[in-house]
C-alpha cells in the first residue's frame, strides 16, 4: 500500500528511473517561466501580473501556506500523513490572538508555535503510539480544534477591548524591512515596462520591499529544514522512518522517537503558519485559516515532498490568491498561463510516451486557452478554486514524477518487521 487506504490505481503512476537534475536546470526553468509570464503580460496588457505590489501580496499570502506545506513535509517525510494541519493552524491563530494581544506579536507567535506543537503531539500519540489511522486522527484534530478555540475565544475575548465572541483584540504587527536603495532603483526599472527586465525588477522589488520579519523567519526555516533533513544524521534518520522504518529500527534507530519529533515539529510549523496569518491580519478570527492547511498539503504534494518544491507550490498558490485581490484583467491572464503550462506538460508526457495523459493535458490546456480567448473576465468566485484545480491536475497528469515516501500512511510497530 502506498498510502492509507486502497492501493488500487497506483500502478498507473509508477515512477521512471530517476535522473539527477542539477540546480542549474531549476534556475533555467524559473527564468523560462518568468519569460512566459512576461510574454503573457505584454500580450494581454495585464500589468498587474508582475508588478511589485502583486509579488508582495503573493509573498504575504504564500507564507502561511508555505509553512503549512513545510509542516506537512516534516510529518510525511517521517511517514505520517498529517491532514490535521488545518486544525493545528487554527490552534496557531488562536495562540497568536491570545498572547499577541497582551504581550506583543512575538509572544503571540511563540504561543501559536507551542499550541500547534501540542496539536502535533496529540496526532503523534494517536498515530504512533496507538496506531490509529493517520487520516482519521487528522480529521478528528481538525474537527476538535475550532471548537476548542471558539470556546476559549468566547471566554477570553468577549469582554476584551476590541475583541468579540469570535475574534481577538487587535495584535500589533512585527517590524517590516526594506533593502535600502535597491527598492527605488528597481521601482524605476519596473516602470519602464520593458519586456522581461521590468518583470524581473517587479519580482525582485516585491521580494525586497517592506518584508515582514516573520516572512524572513519563514524563509530561514526552509533553509534550516533542507539542511536538517538532508545534511544531518537527525534528518537522515527521520527520513528513513518514512521510507523503511524496520530498516531504521534494525540499525538501532528509535523510530518512535523520530516520528514523535517529526510530527511535533510539523504541528509547531503549522502553528507558526497560523500565528503569522493572525499577526498579518492584526487579529485572531474564527475560521481565519480558511482551508490553508489543506492548500499547504497540496503545495507539499505539488512540491514533490521537497522544501524547494513546497516553496514553489506555495508561491504559486499565494500568487493566485494575490491575483484575486489585484483585479480582473490579471486573473483573466492567468487562464492563458494555465493553458500554456498544461501544453508544456503535454509535451513532457508525450516524450515519455504516455499518449493518453498527454492527450488529456492538451485538451484541457486548449480549453483553458479557448476560455481565455472567448471571454473578457473570470468570475472572481471561481478564482479561489485555482489552487485546488491545479493540484488535481498535477496529481492526475504528472503523478508519476512524484516520489512519495515509501512508508507513508502505514502503521509501524516495533519488532514486527522482517
Amino acid at each position, binding site marked *: 500500500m502506498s498510502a492509507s487506504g486502497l492501493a488500487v490505481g497506483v*500502478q*498507473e503512476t*509508477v*515512477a*521512471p*528511473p*530517476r535522473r539527477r537534475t542539477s540546480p542549474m536546470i531549476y534556475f533555467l526553468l524559473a527564468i523560462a517561466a518568468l519569460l512566459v509570464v512576461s510574454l503573457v503580460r505584454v500580450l494581454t496588457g495585464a500589468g498587474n501580473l508582475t508588478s511589485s505590489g502583486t509579488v508582495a501580496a503573493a509573498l504575504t499570502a504564500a507564507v502561511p501556506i508555505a509553512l503549512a506545506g513545510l509542516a506537512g513535509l516534516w510529518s510525511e517525510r517521517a511517514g505520517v500523513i498529517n491532514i490535521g494541519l488545518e486544525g493545528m493552524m487554527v490552534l496557531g491563530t488562536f495562540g497568536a490572538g491570545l498572547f499577541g494581544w497582551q504581550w506583543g506579536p512575538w509572544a503571540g507567535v511563540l504561543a501559536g508555535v507551542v499550541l500547534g506543537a501540542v496539536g502535533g503531539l496529540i496526532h503523534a500519540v494517536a498515530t504512533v503510539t496507538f496506531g490509529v489511522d493517520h487520516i482519521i486522527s487528522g480529521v478528528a484534530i481538525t474537527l476538535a480544534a475550532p471548537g476548542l478555540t471558539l470556546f476559549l475565544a468566547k471566554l477570553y475575548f468577549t469582554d476584551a477591548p476590541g475583541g468579540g465572541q469570535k475574534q481577538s483584540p487587535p495584535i500589533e504587527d512585527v517590524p517590516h524591512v526594506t533593502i535600502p536603495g535597491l527598492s527605488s532603483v528597481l521601482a524605476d526599472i519596473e516602470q519602464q515596462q520593458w519586456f522581461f527586465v521590468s518583470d524581473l525588477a517587479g519580482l525582485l522589488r516585491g521580494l525586497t520591499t517592506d518584508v515582514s520579519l516573520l516572512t524572513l523567519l519563514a524563509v530561514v526555516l526552509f533553509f534550516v529544514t533542507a*539542511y536538517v533533513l538532508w*545534511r*544531518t*544524521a537527525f534528518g*537522515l*534518520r527521520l*527520513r*528513513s522512518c518514512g*521510507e*523503511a522504518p*524496520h*530498516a*531504521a*529500527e*534494525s*540499525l*538501532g*534507530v*528509535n523510530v518512535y522517537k523520530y516520528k514523535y519529533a517529526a510530527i511535533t515539529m510539523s504541528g509547531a510549523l503549522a502553528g507558526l503558519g497560523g500565528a503569522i496569518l493572525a499577526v498579518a491580519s492584526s487579529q485572531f478570527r474564527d475560521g481565519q485559516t480558511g482551508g490553508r492547511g489543506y492548500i499547504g498539503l497540496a503545495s507539499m504534494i505539488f512540491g514533490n515532498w521537497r522544501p524547494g518544491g513546497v516553496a514553489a507550490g506555495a508561491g504559486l498558490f499565494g500568487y493566485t490568491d494575490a491575483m484575486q485581490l489585484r483585479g480582473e484583467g490579471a486573473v483573466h491572464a492567468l487562464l492563458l498561463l494555465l493553458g500554456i503550462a498544461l501544453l508544456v506538460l503535454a509535451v513532457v508526457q508525450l516524450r515519455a510516451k504516455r499518449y493518453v495523459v498527454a492527450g488529456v493535458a492538451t485538451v484541457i490546456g486548449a480549453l483553458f486557452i479557448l476560455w481565455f480567448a472567448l471571454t473578457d473576465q473570470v468570475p472572481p468566485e471561481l478564482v479561489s478554486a485555482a489552487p485546488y484545480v491545479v493540484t488535481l491536475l498535477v496529481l492526475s497528469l504528472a503523478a508519476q514524477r512524484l*516520489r512519495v*515516501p*515509501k512508508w507513508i500512511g502505514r502503521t509501524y510497530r516495533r*519488532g514486527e*518487521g*522482517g
Partner: protein
Amino acid sequence: MNVAVRTGTVHALVGENGAGKSTLMKILYGMQRPDEGTISIDGTQGDFHTPADAIAVGIGMVHQHFMLADNLTVLENVVLGDEPRGGGGIDFKAARAKIKDISARYGLGVDPDRLVDELGVGERQRVEILKVLFRGARILILDEPTAVLVPQEVDELFGNLRELKAEGLTILFISHKLDEVLSVADDITVMRRGTTVASVAPGDVTARQLAELMVGSALPVPELRESTVTDTPVLEAEGLTVTSPDGRTVLEGMSVTINAGEVLGIAGVEGNGQAELVEALMGIRPLQAGRIALRGEDITKLSTRKRRDAGIGYIPEDRHRQGVLLEATLWENRILGHQTKAPSVRGLLLNRSGARADTQRIVDEYDVRTPNIDVLAGSLSGGNQQKLIVGREMSGNPVLLIASHPTRGVDVGAQAAIWEQIRKARAEQLAVLLISADLDELIGMSDSLAVILRGRLVASYDPKAVTPEELGSAMTGAGDGEES
C-alpha cells in the same frame, strides 16, 4: 535452547519453518527480548534491549527481507544510525571514502551514490553486508541469505563469506537449504520447536539425516500413486507475456498445457516469474500477449471472477495477504472467492445458512482444528488456515487447481493432509498447477515438471527420473534440461 559459536567460523543454524530460528535471531540482535536466558559474547554477558546494544558489541545482521530504504542512496542506507559527523552535519566525504574502502577490500563492488531503488537483488545484499561491516561488526548473522539469490550470486556470496572468515570474523548462517549449509558451514546446530536438538559437523551427516533431525521423525514422503493423466487438455496457455508496471518483462512467451488428472510442477528460484504466471492465469495481472483457454474455451479476456466461475480453484502463495480475511469469521472466509456460487449465495444475496453449513462440512472433511466456525480466521494456526483454504478451493468442483506453495509454513501434519487432498482431487480428474520451492514436494507430487528461469520455461523433466540436484542446476541456468 543453547547454542555456542566459535570465533572465526561459519556456524549454520538449520530448522523447519517455525522452529524458532528467526525468533532466536531477533533475540540475538536485540529486536525481541528473551523471557529467560542469557547471551554471552567472548565470555562477557550481553543484555540487548535494542539492536543498538547488539551493534555496540559487534553483532551485525543481514536480514532475509532486505532492510533497505529504496528512495535513499546506498551511502545514506549504509551510514544510517552510525553517521560520521563533521561540520554540524554528516561527513559525507569521510563516509564515501570508508564505504569505497570496505567495498574494495572485500570485493563488494558497491557504488555509494546510487539509489537503492536502482540496484538488483545481489547488489542489495552486498549493500546489506557492507552496512554491517561499516559498523565494525565481528559477528555476522545472515538470515536465509540465499533465498533470493541465483546460484552464481550464491557462489559469490559464499566467496565473500570465506574472505570474511579469513579476516577472523564469525558468521552465523541461518538456512533450511541443507546442501548449501553442508558446503559452507564449519559447525551445524539443528533447531526444532524452539530448542536445539543436535549439534553436528558437516562431515558427519548427510542432507537426509539433517532433514530428519529438523523434522524430528522420518519425513512424510510426498508421492503420487498410479498415473491418472488423461489426454484431455484442461488448461492451455500460449505465449503468455507479462511486463511489470516499470516496464520490465517478467514473463516472456510462456506456454503451458495441463491435462485432466495431471499435476504439473513448476520449479524455480523465487522471483523468476512464478508469481506473475499464477497471477496472469488468474486474471489478476494484465497480459501483454498470449492466450489462455480452459477446457477449450478462451478465457483470456475474462475477469478473475469469471475465471473462478469457469472452474479454477486458487491456493495463493501468501495466505495472509491473499488467502483469508484474518478479521472475518471462518464461514465468511468460506464465501471468499466463491461470491457467485452456491451454496454461499442465492442470486445477488448471500446465503448465510448455506455458507455456514458448507463451512462446517469443510471443517469436518478437511480436519480444520477449530472450536467453531464463528471464530476469526486470524486466530487459527497457519496449517489450519491453509486446510480451510484448500477445502474451500476444492469445493464447487473445480477443473483446474492453481496451488502456489500449498504447504509453505504449515506443520508436518497439515502438509500430509494437503498432499492427500491434492492426490484425491487428481484421481477425480482435476488438473493441478503446482508451484513450490520444496523440490522434494515437486518431484514427489508432480506428473511432469518444468523449470522456470527469468520468465521462461527452460526445461522439462520426468519427475520419476530427475534428482533434486539436476533440478537445482536447471533452476539456476547451469544445467541442460532434457525434453521428457
